[in-house]
Each structure stands twice: as structure tokens, then as C-alpha cells.
């Protein structure tokens, strides 16, 4: 797991308090609205996302940049590849 700090992003999807498997559905939808090379920040309080989102990125050809823990929540960064 790669950790980052204050990573810039072009869009955010806030999934704090939202149940699994929303963390695997909404980022995909949000990425559709971004251009190639732009960064999506995913906010979640679901521990499983730390494993699921990097795997999802690998499966769908997106680049997982890293994670930052912030006040009990996780910020995960995904770079849109295509």
C-alpha cells in the first residue's frame, strides 16, 4: 500500500457512511466524467476499500496512486487511464 499526503485531485466522491459495495460502484461512475490523466479522490470510512479499490483499479485498467488516512477516514486516489 502506497501512502500519500495532500495529493491533488480533480474530483471527489464522498462515500463516508455509505455501505459496501458503493465504494466499488460510484468511483467507476465518477471516473466516466473525468478526462484521461485526471485524478479522482475517494473518501470512505470502509476498511475493505483499502484492498478493494487497488484491486478494482488493476482489473479495470486504472492507476491506483495511494491512500491517506485523515481523521478516521481514508482518501484513496485514482488516476484515470482511459
Amino acid at each position, binding site marked *: 500500500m502506497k501512502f500519500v499526503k495532500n495529493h491533488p485531485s480533480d474530483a471527489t466522491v*464522498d462515500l463516508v*457512511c455509505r*455501505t459496501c459495495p458503493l465504494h466499488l460502484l460510484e468511483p467507476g461512475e465518477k471516473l466516466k466524467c473525468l478526462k484521461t490523466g485526471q485524478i479522482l479522490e475517494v473518501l470512505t470510512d470502509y476498511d475493505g476499500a483499502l484492498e478493494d479499490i487497488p484491486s478494482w483499479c488493476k482489473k479495470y485498467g486504472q492507476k491506483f496512486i495511494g491512500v491517506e488516512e485523515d481523521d478516521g477516514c481514508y482518501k484513496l486516489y485514482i488516476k484515470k487511464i482511459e
Partner: protein
Amino acid sequence: MKSVYMDHASATPVRKQVIEAMLPYFDRHFGNPSTVYDMGSNVKGVLEEQRAKVAGLIGARTEEIIFTSSGAEANNLAIKGIALARQKKGKHIIISAIEHHSVINSARFLERMDFEVTFLPVDKYGLVAAERLSKAITPETILVSIMHANNEIGTIQPISELSAICREKGVVFHTDAVASVGNIPVDVSELNVDLLSLSGAPLGAPKGVGALYFRDNLRLMPLIHGGIQENGRRGGTENVPGIVGIGVASKLAKNEFPEKVNHLQKVRDLLFSRISKQIEHLKFTGHPEMRLPGHASFCIEAIEGEALIFMLTREGVYANTGSACASKVLKTSPVLMAIGIPSDLAQGSIVFTLNSCNRIDEVDYALEKLCFAVEKLRSLSPLWRKQATT
């Protein structure tokens, strides 16, 4: 026997168009909206159409509506959902003293989880003073919940004035609009609220379906953890027929303003004026102008409300002593206590709540039976006899 039903705040008949719209979703279109094949995805599309209709009734965006099982669940989700999601910011909540049990008991539940709750007093009409709310807010306050209209006394709060205070101080504002949505036009932007609860039943949808409006960017802890339903905010396979019911009822309700309000006011005002002429020693409750159009509430001296309801029912007239949820416990209504009604007078509480189906001639019949019952009960009342001789 003639039957005059004037207790629409407790229950109202499901409208014919609503029943007809719901029926195919019990058998022909029974698919689970979460499935990927057409039988399910088609139903999912129908659910989203209903969400848009409910949103349209209150001026919200489609994605800001969460379907629930009732107005009470919507209130629970608003109060507990916001409190649990924002508890790191603070643990203080403010509600009014005349809220529905689903708000009061949600707040009391949070008290057991170390939240602090302030119960704001109201004036003799049931109104919350803006200044009092402003003073009650502390840096720890995360949520204020003030009902839009009260189901027992009909008073409509100046919500936009109260919500503006919360907006300025960065406090989330919720309103329980179960008693008002469908009876008066309600717009979440005009009210400037973050969350608003409504129920299908008062709109002519079946019991067992409600909705919570929440401003799009709010975090809300689910009460029912499940899957992807309601975008991960409320688990459980959706009550599709019920949701179709509330959607159709919402659309019908929206198209009925302002005629419905005018009709309700006309019948209610007639009821008020005739009662005040024919029954002495009674006190109207709630605000004289800022009140629901189809709502008439008063307390009759030297009368026990339950006995009065019993006598009226025998004559085919249906009204209530207060909130349907609380009327069976024979306890002085907290709402009437909060507006300063003495407990002996509060025993004589009676509430008429009207709907479009109530006609002018029904007022005459209800009043005739009411006058007879009051006279009869007072003739048996030692309290009344004592009062008459002094």
C-alpha cells in the same frame, strides 16, 4: 348510519388512482430492482421515476430523496443518521418541546449515547422563537430539528427564519414535515432545510412508505445496513408497490394546489365559527392564522376527550383527541402542556383533521353530534355542575 370521517391526520384512504398504479407491481412487475436482468432493471427505472415525483412535490432534486418505511423512520434516519455521522464535530442536538414521538425518542436514544439534547420551549401558540433557538446553539451543536407543522395543534413554524440561523452557524437543520406535505405547498429551497421527513399516508398513498429529503452533500449514517439500495443509505429490498403509491400520490397532490388549501380552509373555518357559536367554555389551540388549512383543534372544559370520541364514534363521527400515536395512553398531551394548557382542560382535547373529501354539509352533522355529546357529558360531570353553580 351516516359516517363523517375527520381524522385524516391519523389515516386517510388510499386514492383509487394510487391503488390502480400500484397493483401491477404486486404480480406482473414483481422483479427485484437490484437484479441485472430486465425484470429487475425495468422496476429500478420505475423506482427512479417515483423518486422524481416525490422530489418534484417538495422542490428537491431526484437524488436527494431516500425512500423509507414511514415518516417515523425518516425522522429516525435524519436524527440518528446525522448525529452519528457528525459526532466528531460535536454532540449537542436541539429539538422543540412539541416534536413527534419519533423525533423526541430518537433524541432520547442519543442522550443514552452521551449526546446532549436541548428541548426548546414554545409559546402559547406552539411557536419556537428564533431568538431562543439562536441562544441555544453552542459550538457543540450539530443538529436542530423543528417540525414544520404540528399534528395536534396545527401550528406552522416559521421554518425559513429558524433554518437561516442554523445555516449561518453551520448547524444542520431538519424538519419533520409529515403533517404539512400534501396539505400545503412545501419547498425545501424556500424552507432552506438540510433534511425533511414526509410520509405517504397523508398524501393518499398506503401506510408503510415515507421519504427523507437530504441535501446532496450530507453524510448520513444508515440505520439499516444492507446493500446498494438507496445508494447505500438504507438497506433492504425496496417496497416497490408502496413507492409507486407515494410517487403517484405526490404527483396528484402537487397538481391540487391551491384549490385543496382553499377548500380545506373554507370547511375548517366554518367548523371553527359554528363551534365557537354553539359550544361555550372551550379554548382553541394552536396559532389562529399560521396553521394547517384543514386542522381544527380545541379543548372543551369539563369534558374527557376519550369519552367524547367514544360518543361521537357511536354517531358515526370520527375525530381524535390528539396524536394518533399517543391518544391511547391517557396521559396529558406533552404538546398541550408545552403550550400552557392546564392538565384538566387538556383532558378535553379534540382534533378534527380534514381532507378534500370532507364537505360543508358534513360540518353540520359533526357539529350536531358534537353539541349533543358535550351537553350529555357535561350533564354527568360533577366538575361542570360545580362550575355552573359558582
